[in-house]
């Protein structure tokens, strides 16, 4: 009778699809996968937080970071700070990459500097030395300021902290006062003094004096 009962119980009892051995193996697999995914999640969180912390500390903010040819290239970086007189300045670029030889130097593509004395300075290429706070611009450097003066040259070294700009290549300029050409130039005293040297040529428009009528 008991054999029949046992068969009937088996008939009604839910069939166990896995044997005890198989069930143990399955839980080991699940436990391993759970650990793997948790580890991956922790690592990616760490990378993200680490890159944000790095950019906050070094004053650079970047929307995305590419890590090609083992050099970190920052897209749309922004370097901000204050010059010697406390005036804020912001250097932006389309991308920036640390110089392999000297990590203090950041190589910039399409850098632009907004700053009180020269207004806006932009160029296709530049280098920002964070240690000396000097921005060197090359190729087609354009300086425009709020008075409407527009200078064009192929080189400018901006001593951002000292509010000083030095250029050793020829410069041409045009604006409300007139036109100018010179072999080299230097902007000093926060823009109050500008010295042009070598073959200086200017054309002034002596507008009619205010007659006060």
């Amino acid at each position, binding site marked *: 009778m008991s054999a029949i009962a046992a068969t009937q119980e088996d008939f009604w009892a839910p069939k166990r699809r896995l044997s005890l051995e198989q069930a143990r193996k399955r839980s080991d697999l699940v436990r391993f996968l759970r650990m793997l995914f948790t580890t991956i999640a922790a690592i990616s969180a760490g990378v993200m937080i680490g890159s944000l912390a790095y950019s906050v500390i070094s004053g650079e903010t970047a929307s995305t970071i590419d890590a090609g040819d083992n050099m970190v290239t920052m897209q749309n970086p922004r370097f901000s700070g204050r010059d010697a007189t406390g005036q804020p300045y912001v250097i932006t670029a389309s991308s920036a990459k640390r110089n392999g030889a000297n990590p203090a130097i950041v190589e910039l593509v399409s850098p632009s500097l907004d700053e009180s004395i020269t*207004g806006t300075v932009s160029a296709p290429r530049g280098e920002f030395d964070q240690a000396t706070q000097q921005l060197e611009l090359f190729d087609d450097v354009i300086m425009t300021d709020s*008075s409407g*003066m527009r200078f064009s040259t192929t080189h400018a070294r901006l001593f951002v902290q000292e509010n000083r700009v030095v250029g050793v290549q020829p410069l041409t300029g045009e604006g409300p*006062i007139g036109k100018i050409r010179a072999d080299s130039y230097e902007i000093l005293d926060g823009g109050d003094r*500008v010295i*042009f040297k*070598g073959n200086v040529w*200017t054309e002034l428009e*002596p507008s009619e004096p*205010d007659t006060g009528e």
Partner: protein
Amino acid sequence: QLSGQSGPIQIEADTLEFLDKQSKAIYMGNVDAIQGDARIRTDKLTILFEEKQPAEGQANSGIGSGVGAVKQLVAEGSVFYMTPNEQAKGNRGVYNYQNDTIVLTGDVIVTRGENVIVGDRLVIEVGSGKSTVSANSKKKGERVRTVLVTEEADGEE
């Protein structure tokens, strides 16, 4: 204006220092300024501009933002002022925009063709082209001296 003709003034020099807050531009070394048919050559030329007041509630910022019209030109060193029919030399020349006159002082020599006038002070009214030479001293030999070369009449040997 440096000459009866208005228009831009072209200036060449070895160096130029532009002082924004003082509304001043200082040209140094082989200075050559030309406007129309008039020319000034000198060692140093200082241009004083009218000060331009900033717009309401704004500060002048940027190179040349505080600079208005040309107010005065001051030439120093060996100053030469040349027009097609007159050359003048002196140690200091001041061109005043308001009354349109050039005042040349210091060992002034004026030549027109072959005629020469020597004195201490030359005042040129640019618009009318009238020039006045004067001397500081009344002593003999130190007053205004003139050499006029008259054309010889035909037939006189």
